[in-house]
């Protein structure tokens, strides 16, 4: 690769948010470069539940509008499959999950309550132990890594560029604008900068004087061998998120997370723990006829959260050509829409299709400086070092 001296828009972070933004910009002919410190999608973007049903978000309508046509728009398969079923093993869960119906109804989407007979019909691997469930005539699920690669390839098809294995070390600013990105491979000039670097977004934005408050945690998932396909793969509940993939594997996660301290540019270690067994037990409860299925892998991802768990997609006040973006641990499904929103902020200064004022960074203006401790989100002290 010849040395890249600059691009009109430089996006720091080759996760699903940055790559979607890169694709949105490139398809309009904008000269865009995505810089990734490691490999694209190697953190949480490429390893998550794949859900696309975020009825609480202002990006929901755009998420729903885009997913059914993403394969066609990108030109590469995402494995999107529509509709979603959520099963409850207790009246308490049933009540909690029910909020989705009112959220969706308010925005014009239909859902249904499933009785146990319908559960058996729609979910052949289910048993008689669920008290009820919901069928969403919206949302769905897709394959995270395949989608992420599709964004990257589609962006490149439109002339966008990708630079992997290149860490960002700083920024150059002149007169209230960022003019360049300092990297391990030298300075890269830019007219616009997007920081969408997942857990590293806080540290990088702090270099520009506007730290996006966030903390990172490790979460775990399991996947089984393939099973015969159910009519709807997007079945979860019983304290789990996940899906049956189009290949037939059951890929599910849930349960406790571990708050971490992420320092520097290094990729965080992502070990799994015996929580695998506890996820497995809940999965066998959710889908008792799959109890014989064998877990063939477990994995972990590191994900950032803002103090309220909600996204930040905003232009900086003092450097107007900078957009910062974190989807706060719920980024994959919303990515078709978040990339669009970022494109709008970069090119037009405002989001054209949704009111994203709740994503403003300014909502943290009065945030307690020790918010992390106050919320109990501290990393636990390492009891022993891994390395001897």
């Amino acid at each position: 690769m010849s040395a890249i001296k600059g691009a009109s828009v430089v996006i720091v972070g080759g996760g699903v948010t940055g790559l979607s933004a890169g694709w949105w910009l490139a398809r309009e002919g904008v000269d865009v470069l995505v810089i990734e410190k490691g490999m694209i999608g190697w953190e949480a973007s490429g390893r998550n539940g794949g859900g696309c049903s975020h009825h609480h978000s202002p990006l929901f309508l755009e998420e729903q509008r885009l997913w059914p046509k993403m394969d066609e728009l990108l030109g590469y398969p995402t494995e999107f499959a529509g509709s979603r079923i959520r099963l409850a093993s207790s009246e308490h869960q049933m009540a909690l999950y029910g909020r989705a119906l009112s959220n969706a109804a308010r925005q014009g989407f239909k859902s249904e309550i499933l009785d146990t007979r319908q559960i058996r019909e729609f979910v052949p691997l289910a048993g008689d132990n669920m008290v009820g469930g919901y069928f969403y005539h919206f949302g769905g699920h897709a394959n995270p890594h395949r989608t992420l690669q599709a964004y990257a390839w589609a962006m490149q098809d439109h002339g966008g560029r990708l630079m992997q294995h290149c860490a960002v070390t700083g920024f150059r600013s002149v007169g209230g604008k960022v003019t360049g990105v300092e990297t391990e491979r030298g300075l890269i000039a830019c007219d616009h900068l997007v920081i969408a670097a997942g857990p590293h977004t806080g540290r990088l934005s702090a270099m520009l004087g506007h730290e996006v408050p966030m903390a990172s945690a490790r979460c775990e998932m399991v996947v089984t061998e393939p099973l015969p396909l159910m009519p709807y793969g997007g079945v979860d509940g019983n304290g789990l998120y996940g899906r049956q993939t189009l290949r037939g594997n059951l890929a599910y996660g849930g349960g406790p997370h571990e708050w971490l301290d992420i320092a520097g540019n290094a990729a965080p270690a992502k070990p799994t723990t015996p929580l695998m067994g506890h996820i497995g037990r809940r999965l066998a409860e959710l889908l008792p006829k799959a109890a014989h299925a064998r877990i063939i892998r477990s994995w972990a991802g590191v994900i950032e959260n803002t103090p309220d768990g909600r996204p930040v997609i905003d232009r900086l006040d003092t450097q107007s050509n900078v957009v910062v973006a974190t989807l706060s641990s719920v980024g994959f499904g919303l990515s078709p829409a978040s990339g669009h929103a970022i494109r709008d902020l970069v090119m037009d200064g405002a989001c054209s299709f949704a009111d994203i004022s709740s994503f403003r960074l300014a909502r943290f203006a009065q945030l307690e400086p020790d918010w992390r401790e106050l919320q109990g989100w501290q990393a636990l002290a390492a009891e022993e070092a891994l390395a001897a």
Partner: protein
Amino acid sequence: MQVISIQAKCAMASTVPPDPKSVAGKSLHVEERAQLLVIGAGPAGLAAAIEAAGRGLSVVLVDENPVSFKTMGDEVPLHYGQGMSAEARNRNAMMEAFIASEPQIEAAFEAGVDVRLGTACWGLYANGPAVTWLPGLVAGLNDESRSWMLQAEHVVVAAGRRDMGLGFPGWEKPGVLGATAAVSLASRYGALGRRRVVVLGSSTEALTAALNLREAGTEIAAIIEQAQAPLGSPELIAALRKAGTEILTGHVVREASGRDAVEAVLFSEIDGDGRSFGAERIISCDGIVLAIGATPVVDLLDAMGCRIAFQPERGGYAPVVDSGQRTNVRNIFAVGDCAGIWSGKTQDRAIAEAEGRRAVAAIAAGLGMTDDRVVPAALEPPAPSHDISAYRLAWVRASVIEARAEFHVCQCEEVTAREILEVRPPRYLDWKNERRNDRSLSALLGEEPPNPDQVKRLTRAGMGACQGRRCREQVAALLALGAAMPLSSIPLAGYRAPVRPLPLSIAGQIPEPPEQAEHWDTWFGMHAQWRPFWDVPELYTVATNDATGPVASE
């Protein structure tokens, strides 16, 4: 300023409880404890267990063998290729044969080692930079009906070897199996259901396997070797020739033929580029034994984060160990074949046994136990007898890339070599948009070598129920050939627990602490995260947030 904030932090930390939805304060149910867990009852593991018991340590020794007939059918832990005879169905007989075939097992019982046969270790876990809630070093164990956690102060991994898979048209047929599996079935159990086999590979390892098979009563019809001359020792070649084995160098398998299982092997001569020429020949046989590359079993070690490096003198990817057999993870040791395979070690089990004892000596020294036992000196492997990178690549070029018909390199997920090299989406997606044809390996690369984990996620090669045991070395070789790089430059495809397939119903038996069940949530359990956007306050502060509000993470 700095001082004040630290003081404030300390004050807070003492008053604010940790996030109840996190792992903080959660406990793991540990069913049993041991000072030393040894995984694998081969020469090295047995020597370690017996030595440790002799020094007064409490020792649990697990070995997944004998695995059940069904498990063998699932290609766990080796590439059995349905090569087992009906005798393998008799579990009691298999158990007796397993114990009888290794006198040191009896010696371990007598030495006071808690020996558990038919018990697998599917995961090793320790606290580290990103995990802090475990009680210590723990191992996930299971047998046919149960799984549970064992906590150990030290773990010696002696997980042995398996074989690099090598594809050719028909290699999915019953009767194509790895040399380690074949020798185990034949020599340990008398349960190899194949009478006349062709062996692929001519290294000393391969020839030794062939001679072991012959000794157990299997006819070795031929040795097929793509290289122009045999690699292994002339004495072993002569011994095989004497008994009528054909030595076919400069040849490669074109097809394994047969209706329901291997009935014959078709092969031909190859040129310097691995391309076949001349007339094909046929040898009737009921088995094809893959012996082109024995590989250390590093799955548990890699999955838990031990440093693994491509070490040709140790047979490929092997853990980095010091003179005390220590890995870089505290209290984890690797001994025997899983710490490195070379022919001298294969010929003389005393080398592996010495590694086992050396690990125990290091453990004892660490515990401050001093005695006058003589610790065998560390023995470094000699320089490799052949360039295993070039050798394995040559096999894959001749057998897989130059194959006369496409076949599944990854049998579980049915992925061909071309699909791997072109990074094609899996066929079940029925993807018709040919625009993606320009997306090949080179488009993924950037400036780094191709990464098998990335290719796996896109093509599914290596993603199946056999957990990549049959295809991962071939996939790595294909990527090396595709990128024109040496095999050593291709990163190891990552292993993940469980390193043995584990049914949900068995994995789920690990008890869960009530405080974890009480706070279990689908996602982070944050009320604020899921408030609909029309209901979000303009400013967020911890003080004004209702952290106890209802949560149903979507």
